[in-house]
């Protein structure tokens, strides 16, 4: 190979690789662009900044994307006016993504995850014409939560009453345990802290509501964010609880939950999923072991935020999605285990929570 050719080949190969890698961006699922959306609100521009995992995580980010697609299907926003950005593997460019979307002049910028709170708290003041919304956010908490600014007028934190949903699956677990003559259930948390303690508190209250003779074992995987991605520890701690007599374990541990499901199969016991309907995501071998899941309707929150920005009703501050707002729920996909008796009971409890007859505690 002549030398001039060799010097050319390397940069060309690199260029080809880069264009191949970047040019292959698949369109987000759902937005197939079949051209049958005749009318949409062309005045609204929406940007979504996803968190680690991105589209395709079958969890948080996918749920947010589903909310966006629903809004597009309803014509609340035009498909070409909806932009999204995904962070790198460590999430270090979260804030840059948010600023890029704000700089593009989007009317609404949604950060999908609590980790967006500090950045948006700091920068929202520079974009008075942009509304910011954060899933699980705490940006409006301001200096009380160790952030820089108070009194933001264009930031909305979208939070969920996870404890209410956890109450229902706790009641389901206790009912099933009592049926099977078992007196212990378990809770597997990811990272220690108030967010996951809401799940624990609701679950414990739900179990006690049905049968206060049932003991709830509690294990947390760790005290940093890797606790949500450590299936090995998740499996080890779950096996420990099953060995100690737990017959059903509920997890709020993100991807570490995969370890719980492995442990449930090995112990021939039951598990309860979280966030999305995990019965639909696991293998056929695991499905009989997934009793139900606590559903957190991130899609509803995203959809509503877009709708409210469109009609100008989105208010700064906090917006809480509880049972009454359709923000949390439980799944019935495992029809074998979610018998009519149990679903009737849970739907009754659900109504009592909505009516305010039952108040679910937020802290254990």
């Amino acid at each position, binding site marked *: 190979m002549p030398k001039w050719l060799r010097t050319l080949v390397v940069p060309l190969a690199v260029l080809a690789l880069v264009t191949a890698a970047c040019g292959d961006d698949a369109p987000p699922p759902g937005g197939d662009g079949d051209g049958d959306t005749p009318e949409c609100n062309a005045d609204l521009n929406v940007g979504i900044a996803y968190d*680690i995992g991105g589209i*395709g*995580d079958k969890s948080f980010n996918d749920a947010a994307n589903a909310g966006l697609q629903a809004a597009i299907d309803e014509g609340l926003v035009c498909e070409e006016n909806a932009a999204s950005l995904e962070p790198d*593997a460590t999430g270090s460019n979260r804030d840059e993504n948010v600023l890029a979307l704000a700089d593009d002049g989007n009317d609404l910028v949604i950060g999908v995850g609590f980790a967006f709170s500090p950045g948006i708290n700091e920068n929202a003041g520079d974009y008075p014409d942009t509304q910011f919304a954060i899933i699980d956010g705490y940006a409006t908490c301001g200096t009380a939560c160790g952030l820089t600014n108070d009194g933001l007028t264009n930031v909305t934190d979208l939070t969920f009453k996870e404890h209410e949903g956890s109450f229902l699956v706790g009641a389901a677990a206790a009912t099933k345990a009592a049926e099977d003559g078992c007196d212990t259930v378990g809770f597997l948390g990811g990272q220690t802290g108030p967010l996951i303690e809401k799940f624990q508190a609701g679950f414990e209250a739900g179990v006690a509501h049905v049968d206060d003779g049932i003991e709830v074992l509690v294990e947390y995987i760790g005290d940093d964010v890797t606790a949500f991605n450590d299936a*090995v520890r998740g499996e080890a701690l779950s096996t420990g609880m099953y060995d100690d007599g737990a017959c059903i374990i509920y997890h709020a541990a993100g991807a570490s939950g995969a*370890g719980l499901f492995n442990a449930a199969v090995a112990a021939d016991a039951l598990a309860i999923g979280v966030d999305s309907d995990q019965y639909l995501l*696991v*293998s056929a*071998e695991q499905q009989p072991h997934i009793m139900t899941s606590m559903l957190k309707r991130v899609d509803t929150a995203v959809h509503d935020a877009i709708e409210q920005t469109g009609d100008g009703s989105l208010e700064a501050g906090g917006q809480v999605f509880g049972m009454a707002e359709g923000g949390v729920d439980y799944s019935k996909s495992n029809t074998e285990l979610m018998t009519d008796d149990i679903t009737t009971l849970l739907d009754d409890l659900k109504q009592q929570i909505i009516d305010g007859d039952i108040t679910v505690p937020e802290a254990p």
Partner: protein
Amino acid sequence: MDLQDIGAAIRIAFIYFTIVYLTGLGGLFSERSGIVNIGLEGLMVVGTVSGAAGVALFAGPASDGLELGPGGVVLGLLIGALCGALFASVHAVATINFRVDHIVSGVVINLVAVGLARFLSYVFFEQATQSDPGGPHLSRFDIPLLSDIPGGLGVAFQNLSPVVIFAALLVFPVTYVLYRTRWGLRLRSAGENPEATRSLGVAVAPLRWQGVLLSGALAGLAGGFLSVEVVGNWREGQTLGLGFISLAALILSNWDPRRLMVVAFLFGFALAIPLRLDDAPVISALPDQFINMIPYVVTIVAIAGFVGRVRPPAAAGRAYEGAGGG
């Protein structure tokens, strides 16, 4: 705490042992040949995604026509090892042929691996950060006799992946090859004194290439074991620094495959303590964070306290100028 907890902790230790030992052996081959490899974590990362992809290809739902069963899983794990070796060849080209600083190249391997894994994930799974959970794996089995130990200790030897046994048995062929064969002697000499090796008419570069490729294959296999056999799916970031723990184990073992086996198990056991033995005497009084530090503290103490006894291959990390000519 009872005997069953100890048995369960040992079983967890076996799982960490398998990952740390396979990856550590990989590092051992590389460093014994004279190439420092701190890219083990990155090689493992590539193994996690490509191993899972291989298994999905040969044993997953999409492979119905192949009907390979457990053979398909083995084939998939080998794909993980192969991709690890391929990726390690980047390190080999850089350090052996272009004489790049071994640490710099290793850091690059670790950094590139994260992006490469995501790219491969798009190619294989059409998702950025994970594959579908609950994928096929090899059937678990109980070790005869040992699994029947009464009192709960037998739990340690039940429901194990065959890869655990494979890793444990590797100590025999590796020790034999390294200390009893001509190739092993030459590999070690390339790491101790490449000039002498060359002066005896043995080419250094091919030996170092073989060492680095083996490190990629073994770390890739460890990654595949983690994603396929332990977790059941690939997930971004699931290696959680185990490649670096393997590196620490390798140093503590003094680059000896037999001692590495012991160290890998001890590290595995240390990682298992907070999971099952946190209510044991003494341990219950210590904070979790302290227990989690044990492998690293032991390594630092060992290196600081046994300087002279912990001795890396003499030429490890040094470029061999004659390598280009063989």
